[in-house]
């Protein structure tokens, strides 16, 4: 679709399983639409030029920078943000629980981006070498932790998931 400056277009997108119809201007960033229009402020913006990774969300299952994506580009897409990670309001996803257990966060600002980046890979993480895992998250900056807790957390999440499933059966 072609849009002039100031003109809006209606897009349909699904965020954490909920369908939204939103009028967006061509220049509106997905990060701004998620945060300000839809009100999902768990997605953070750290640099606005795609380097820090704080704003990472899943677009159709793939991690992507919501600060480098125009909302209008996501017409028809399914987006997952950090708010969509835990099954219930008071529970934590195994990955979230692992971040808590391994002190994988301090100020929490970069954390949603790390969680969304780790989501597609954490099940394979126990088999990854240290170097592989570091490379896998090398698009994300953290200024607080020095990464040690984050690496342990991603590596340990699958185990938490297994033990939860074990407890259920």
């Amino acid at each position, binding site marked *: 679709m072609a849009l002039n400056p100031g003109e809006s277009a209606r897009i349909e997108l699904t965020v954490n399983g909920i369908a939204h119809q939103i009028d967006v201007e061509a220049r509106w960033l997905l990060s701004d639409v998620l945060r300000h229009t839809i009100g999902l402020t768990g997605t953070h913006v750290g640099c606005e030029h795609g380097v820090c990774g704080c704003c990472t969300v899943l677009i159709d299952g793939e991690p992507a920078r919501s600060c480098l994506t125009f909302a209008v580009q996501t017409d028809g897409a399914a987006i997952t943000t950090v708010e969509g990670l835990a099954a219930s309001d008071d529970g934590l996803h195994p990955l979230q629980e692992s971040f808590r257990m391994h002190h994988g966060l301090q*100020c929490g600002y970069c954390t949603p981006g790390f969680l969304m980046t780790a989501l597609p890979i954490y099940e394979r993480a126990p088999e990854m070498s240290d170097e592989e895992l570091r490379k896998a998250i090398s698009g994300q900056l953290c200024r607080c932790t020095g990464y040690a807790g984050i690496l342990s957390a991603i590596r340990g999440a699958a185990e938490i998931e297994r033990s939860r499933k074990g407890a259920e059966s």
Partner: protein
Amino acid sequence: MTTRMFGQSVKRNEDPRLLTGKGRYVDDIEHSAAQVAFVRSEPAHARIIDIDVSGTLDIDGVLGIYTYEDLEGDFAKPLPLLIPNDGLFAPKTQYALAHEEVCYAGEVIAMVVAKDRYIAEDAASAIRVEYETLPVVADLEEAARPGAPVAHLDMEDNVSGRVSEAKGDVDAAMAAASHVYQWRFSMERAAAMPMEGRGIVAHYDESDQSLLLYDSTQAPTGVRGGLALLFGLDPDRVHVVAPDIGGGFGMKVIQFYPEEVLVPWASRLLGIPVKWTEDRREDFIGSNHERGQAHEVRVGTDDEGRILGMETNFLNDAGAYCSYGLIIPIITAAQMQGPYRIENFRYEFRNLFTNKVPTSPYRGAGRPHAVYVMERVIDKIALELELDVAEVRRRNFIGPNEFPYDVGVTFQDGGPTIYDSGEYERGLDVLLDALDYGNARAEQRKAAEQGRLMGIGIGYYVEGTGIGPYEGAAIKVLADGSVTVALGFSSQGQGHETVFAQIVSDELGVAVDKVKVTSGDTRRIGYGVGTFASRSAVVGGNAVFKAAVQIRKQAAEVAARSLEVAAEDLVFENGQIRVAGAPDLSVGLGQVALISNPLRYAFGEESQEAVLLAQRAYAQSDRPLPDGMRPGLETAEFYSPTSGVFAFGAHAVVIEIDPDTCNLKILRYVVMHDCGAVINPMIVEGQILGGVAQGIGGAFYERLAYDDQGQLQNASFMDFLIPYATEIPTVELHHTETKSPLNPLGIKGVGEAGTIPGPAVIANAVSDALGRPIDSMPISPLDIYAILYKG
């Protein structure tokens, strides 16, 4: 017997909120507020000739555009000088909006308020500023040169302050020394770069002349006091809330940045909530930097490498303004002697204006520079005298029986620098054992035989932490048995909601997750100082402890009356106050809170029982509320330390330099650290590990590349290299525990420790690997290439 929570790696209370996207950072608040964008100076030094806003007139949604001419009264005066000092004779601070002259690229010239940020940016970019550019002084050493351009037109040179101090007789010591060396060391600027920039939401309510400010500040109480004064408002109607903050590292302690004044000013003027969220480029050019020093050092030793006398003459880069006074160079001077006994010591520094972003403390605050200078001095002495670097340190340590040890120079709080406790040689032993130092040296020799460039670096530091003047905690027990704790100082990720809950948990016998800590909200506690200088756990922790002890005393008195026993016989555990030896006789802490507030009317079952208990107490006394008691189970207590407490530690690194890429490979990074009694080891380790990453970043990756016109050439994360997980090695941590005798909990601070020796260890290791001195930091592969291949 319940487990003592102090000392346990308790999982953090704040984590579930932060992990599920329910954290509340400033930009998450008030999406409907009007939004601000700023026009910032492009030249580093210029006269403003004209500001043309005509291009903005046809932009829909602009609510206001403001320049200096719009400011009146105190708003038109320079922003406050935060920390005056006798040695600071040109205490220049900036105007909220630039007045005639701009002195750094990034200085705020005009403010746009608009319906949303997109429109505000449109308008800001349509404003044309005409400048008459002026000569720029960007380089620190150039700024000190007679005849150099001046950073401020009304000054004759660039010196804003000068301080000197001496202990012993340095001249006599130099005359008596077997060896006298002169060395120069320099360190460029660094920047905090928290992942969340600064942000402000201001809500001025004309109907009751109140101001509510959400501010990503490390010092909400100070911002509140300052704004009340500036706005001429009743301080009780001004409130500042520092909600979740995405890292601070010192950068967010300044009061005020211009935006902190302008955003509430616009809210009052327009009568609507107004919001500003800093973007990353603004953070590079509009939020304070640090480091930036050049030292000329003389040191005299005997033949065994013992330092007999030392002096340093150094320059500190203030940037364009100096609202934080001389604190950074004062800390450098006060902490330079580190763990070493130096009987004769002298320093003089000059604080110099340059046309660059102002400087103020960033994690480490003057200490990374001090430690880098001192630890390079130690390694150079070892090289000169053909001694082992560890042995030279050992020969100069202050002994374990010499405490309290008077360093002989003035500390940053204005008092003497007196170390409270330390075990420096034991610390070195722990470090070297962990490193297996002898083996590491043997491997290095083997590598050298193979032509490989391996190096070992050691850096030792002492860090003054936990300075005053005071901090406070307001504790309240609620009817459901949970406890609320309000702190005046804010958290930027340090885990305040957990560590302070641990202290309360032990004293009151309630679970850690039943203690709800709110930090940095002046609506909850009005008095406080701020989170900086590794002080929150020390000063705040002891305030929390005092308050919890007081609550326990109050609760015990009430419970004793209710249960008709002596207060001394009561134990607090599992949310109950029990009588020792009589397990059935108990009252819930929440019930005690209820009956501490004598009720005429019951509400709910628990309070019915509590009213009956209260009636029994009433029957024994002539008043429902005995003399000297206040309703409710709550108190606010304050702790004011007599002086700072001195943590210490040492890092060792083993590196190898790739001769093709000139990159550093960190083979091992070992840390020995001592911050006295540890409240939560997991959190302390997290502080150290994060600090180490910033230290490595500052030593090898992060360089603020200013050109000679004062333009920051790499003001983005594309060009300014913060290390990713691929650059930070696995760090091996070892602790010793030398408690402070100066506070009840024996705590010393830890927030900055990990960062402090970073430049020192990397410089020493690279020097060791190359056999060439690394005396200016940071270094980069290009520097190493020049050393290896360009002679």
